[in-house]
């Protein structure tokens, strides 16, 4: 069943619905707000506010209405805005994604939900060919202000067909913006920016982050708040090694940074937020400062997001590097079901710590 997670006894956790961040908050560099918000509530409030601000925004997807959302992200929207703005579609990804694209061609602003991004493969023709490429093919006449959102990447024990990460696939296509939030502030700010944006945006959420609470500032709770696209965030300042990642792995990287700090390695953690356009300036500036790079992602290793980041750093900051670039990705296998194998197939905090130490020439 959706949304049911297994309690896990690993320190890379963050998988429990009820766990909230506590002591680690004060080490953060962003505004320490007294309020906390789950990523789920952040997304819900973002969609709610954008729908009330602009009547052209509507939501469409499977179970978004009466079921309140497969992961409860669209909870309450049907009651508030009615069935003309919150559409429960039949199970026809290609059909309803195409309808969303057509509606965007004609001037509306659809927010299309995929129950998981794995299902977007049934609609990928529309995301790439009729949404991403249209502004270019029509020489700017037809822009497509659509948002494709949904959970991406591995959940807990959902098997190979429900666990793939699509960041690399979508981020390779010119004409798409690809965003991957981590915290509640990211989720709110980036989703609001995505809905307002005149271009097609692929918004990759993470099912395991939905229940996590993060502190949120007053500024982020304002209804006009939105974050810039194409700009990464430095979650933790450091001077010895740069760890670049996105989505759930940001949490793991932060834990790894704490462990590294105990051993005297100061790690800088960069939360990409935006996979396309990629914030190469921030990444390279950080690597020029620390001289070492570790990139982390959950997806398949070959042709992944990390590959692009490594190539970019080698091209632009080669003479600043003191060690080979390190790349940590998911295992090069379809996701296994067994819990221990799944754990082995995904990056864990220990892997990040080991890679950072290797980059610092501190391991055997």
């Amino acid at each position, binding site marked *: 069943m959706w949304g049911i997670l297994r309690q896990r006894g690993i320190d890379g956790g963050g998988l429990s619905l009820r766990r909230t961040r506590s002591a680690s908050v004060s080490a953060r560099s962003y505004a320490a707000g007294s309020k906390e918000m789950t990523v789920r509530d952040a997304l819900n409030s973002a969609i709610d506010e954008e729908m009330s601000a602009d*009547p*052209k925004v*509507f939501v469409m997807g499977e179970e978004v209405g009466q079921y309140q959302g497969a992961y409860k992200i669209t909870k309450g929207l049907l009651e508030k805005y009615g069935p*003309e*703005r919150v559409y429960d*579609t*039949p199970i*026809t990804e*290609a*059909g*309803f*994604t*195409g*309808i*969303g*694209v*057509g*509606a*965007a*061609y*004609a*001037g*509306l602003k659809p927010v299309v939900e995929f129950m998981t991004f794995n299902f977007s493969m049934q609609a990928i*023709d*529309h995301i790439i*060919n*009729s949404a991403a490429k*249209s*502004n*270019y*093919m*029509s*020489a*700017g*006449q*037809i*822009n497509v*202000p659509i948002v494709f959102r949904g959970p991406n990447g591995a959940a807990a024990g959902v098997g190979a067909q429900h666990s793939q990460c699509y960041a690399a696939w979508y981020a390779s296509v*010119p*004409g798409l*913006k690809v965003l991957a939030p981590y915290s509640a502030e990211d989720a709110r700010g980036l989703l609001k*920016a*995505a809905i*307002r*944006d*005149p*271009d097609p945006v692929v918004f990759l959420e993470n099912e395991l982050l939905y229940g996590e609470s993060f502190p949120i500032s007053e500024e982020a709770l304002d209804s*006009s*708040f*939105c974050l*810039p*696209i*194409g*700009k990464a965030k430095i979650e933790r300042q450091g001077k010895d090694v740069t760890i670049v990642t996105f989505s759930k792995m940001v949490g793991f990287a932060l834990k790894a940074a704490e462990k590294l700090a105990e051993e005297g390695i100061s790690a800088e953690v960069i939360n990409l937020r935006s996979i396309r*356009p*990629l*914030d*190469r*300036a*921030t990444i390279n500036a950080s690597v020029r400062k620390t001289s070492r790079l570790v990139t982390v992602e959950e997806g398949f290793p070959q042709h992944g997001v990390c590959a692009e980041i490594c190539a970019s750093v080698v091209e632009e900051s080669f003479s600043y590097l003191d060690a080979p670039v390190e790349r940590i990705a998911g295992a090069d296998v379809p996701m296994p079901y067994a819990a221990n194998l799944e754990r082995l197939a995904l990056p864990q905090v220990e892997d990040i710590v080991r890679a950072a130490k290797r980059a610092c020439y501190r391991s055997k």
Partner: protein
Amino acid sequence: MATAFSATLPLHGSSSQENRLLLPSTRLPPPPPPSSFLGSTRSLPIRRLNHAHASRRSPVVAVQEIVKAKKPTNSLLITKEEGLVLYEDMILGRSFEDMCAQMYYRGKMFGFVHLYNGQEAVSTGFIKLLTQSDSVVSTYRDHVHALSKGVSARAVMSELFGKVTGCCRGQGGSMHMFSKEHNMLGGFAFIGEGIPVATGAAFTSKYKREVLKQDCDDVTVAFFGDGTCNNGQFYECLNMAALYKLPIIFVVENNLWAIGMSHLRSTSDPEIWKKGPAFGMPGVHVDGMDVLKVREVAKEAVARARRGEGPTLVECETYRFRGHSLADPDELRDAAEKAKYAARDPITALKKYLIENKLANEAELKSIEKKIDELVEEAVEFAEASPQPGRSQLLENVFADPKGFGIGPDGRYRCEDPKFTEGTAQV
């Protein structure tokens, strides 16, 4: 759901045995005798629209019955002005496509070019009934749809030559004709891709009317072929268009061939019009080589959509005189079949109708042909003389957003704010 409204119109006097698409005569009443009356003379049991009893699905009325009922006897289907407009549009389509073939073989045009010769009646029959704000979505065989919708011959020819004066500044090409001004929403290379996009445009009309409370009765016409009717997206959209009662007309240009794959070899039930009623919309079969028959069916389908009664599926039996594309040697089609359809050339048929019914004389039609020839020649000269796109155009228009940083809280693009530091978001 009764299929009473799914009628088969008489085809140019051919008998039922010759026409492979008709059911064996034991299952259908015998075809009516051929007459000069264009339209069905068959009387059908129909369901009358009954507004007193609201039902979950609206009852559907036979298109042909309405056509027959409202048309007074002994008068023509078109006026002289309408006739000349239709004739000119079809001649434009034909001349333009012939010129494309010439230009392709001279190397001015390249890539994939799919010509529409023979199918002009469908494009003219439907699109000449639409307004500028109605939308048309097509496939890769879209030059004539763009021309009928109002995109100038110069703009289309320049686009095909890949010049900056083309309707998409040379960035789309033959298969991707877009025009915001004329609501020509493409031009899609993947078959079936245009159908959901068209359904979305129709969805927007309904949304504008019901949610945004605007006065909008725009309809959308989606053109696609027989091969597309075996594709999943077609069925997904028939379902949703009927479910949401969208103002869309699905027009199947059944030319019997999908490249080299015959429709009969690839389809379990080749009668495409029957698939409409299965989803709760009328399915109509019409002779697509006869522009007046197409126009009569189109009038009712468009009116139905404008009234808010929902979608219609129209199967037009038509034929393409040339191969699938200019690269297709067209070896699989039988010469006899080609000759049979060549004898039913829609332009010749309309010319005959106009002259026989004294709506126009030879001289007038000749002068139209001459005018169009000159127009097409001028379009070629214009395209030849136009420059190719500049180098900087390569990176333009990937995003509508100039630098890809999104929109700020004040509603303006972030990159317009001088305090916002420039990143490396290269577009």
